[in-house]
């Protein structure tokens, strides 16, 4: 297969091909978006394994629902929404299975240098440490950008609960990052 240099297909064309069930196009779409989407999923669940499970379930939905993509908003954004929904489903499913015991990790990160602190892996780890409720709301609000109202609907909680979960999450994270560092943070 001499397809070494293949220009990426435009979003529009790719969508059209995926609608036809073109496997090569589906693979291309997957390759293009999956790394970022895996990171999204990873923020919501506790292990990489779980994240991959969410990822695969979500992509299956992406390909079967591709017809429903109206073109409104970017393709990446549409896919991301499906990811988040699938992650939430997964959490709900997990919750039904067992009671989660949250352990608080009090290792001291406060004195690390700024660069190290804002490193992607490090931030991911901080989020990982959060209790499930705080973590979920923080992800949805601060990173995904949903409103409290939307979050309430998605999680089946009230706006106020969403707000309080968010502020608790922030408090936790700030402790980890260290207040001082935050004050001197450069844009």
């Amino acid at each position: 297969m001499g397809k070494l240099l293949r220009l990426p297909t435009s979003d529009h064309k790719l969508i059209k091909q995926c609608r036809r069930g073109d496997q090569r196009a589906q693979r291309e779409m997957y390759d293009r978006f999956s790394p970022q989407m895996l990171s999204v999923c990873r923020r919501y669940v506790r292990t990489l394994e779980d994240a991959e499970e969410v990822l695969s379930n979500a992509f299956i939905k992406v390909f079967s629902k591709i017809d429903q993509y109206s073109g409104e908003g970017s393709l990446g954004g549409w896919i991301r929404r499906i990811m988040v929904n699938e992650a939430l489903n997964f959490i709900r499913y997990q919750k039904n299975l067992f009671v989660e015991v949250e352990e608080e990790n009090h290792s001291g990160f406060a004195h690390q240098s700024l660069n190290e602190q804002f490193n992607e892996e490090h931030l991911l780890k901080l989020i990982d440490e959060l209790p499930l409720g705080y973590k979920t709301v923080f992800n949805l609000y601060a990173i995904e950008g949903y409103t409290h109202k939307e979050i309430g609907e998605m999680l089946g909680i009230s706006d106020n609960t969403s707000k309080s979960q968010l502020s608790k999450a922030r408090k936790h994270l700030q402790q980890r990052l260290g207040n001082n560092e935050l004050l001197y943070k450069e844009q």
Partner: protein
Amino acid sequence: MKEENRLDKIFKENLSDHEIKPSESVWDRIEGELPQQKKRGGGLYVMRAATVALLIGLSTWFTFDPSQPDSTLGNPTNIGTQIQKEKEKNKEKEKGTKEKSGKDKTSEKKENPKKETIPILRPRVKSNSKLLVSADPVPVVAEEELEDELLMDQVALRVDEELKPEPLRVKVRYRPDMAIGAFYEEEEQTTAEAEENPELKERVVAYASDQFNNLISGKPLELPKTEKKPRLEVNLGKWFNN
């Protein structure tokens, strides 16, 4: 308008574009669950299925020769035990094992895919019937003919196994003592007789070529026409026209 929280921003900016490479198994799982391909994708599937069906049909057609009431794929086990018994009776040494296995492999190689074993060429009445053939130039049959027949079979066999499309090369040695071996207890006698009879070599070569052809085309094998009466008569009627 939302007030932008500094903390939120740190996380958002650093994690929005973060990537983690998924393992291959993820795609495998997705691929397995994808909805069926539509339109021409569907046509391709039908074509493939049809090709496989055709190949299976061809292979069964080539396997069973309708002109035989008793198919050549008979009872290998029976023959096996008969020959086993004969072997035990005879005290002859097994010199020919090398040639035997060489020959075995080539014919077995052909037979295996059919999932039933056809016993190797055993026209001999007495055991270690290693009738092996041919003199030094190895003209085992016209190889051109062989190739054609092989190609036909290979098409059929591809369903079961990947065979390389090479013509079978059968390397054999002429062992006159083996050729006559069953008839004399002592080796000297047999060698002597072989030397006395130069025609024997030609006959042996011709016979083996014919039988090999038969073997490949699925026809039944034939006992050689000998001048002397075999000492032991065993009923192999199913397998040989004699």
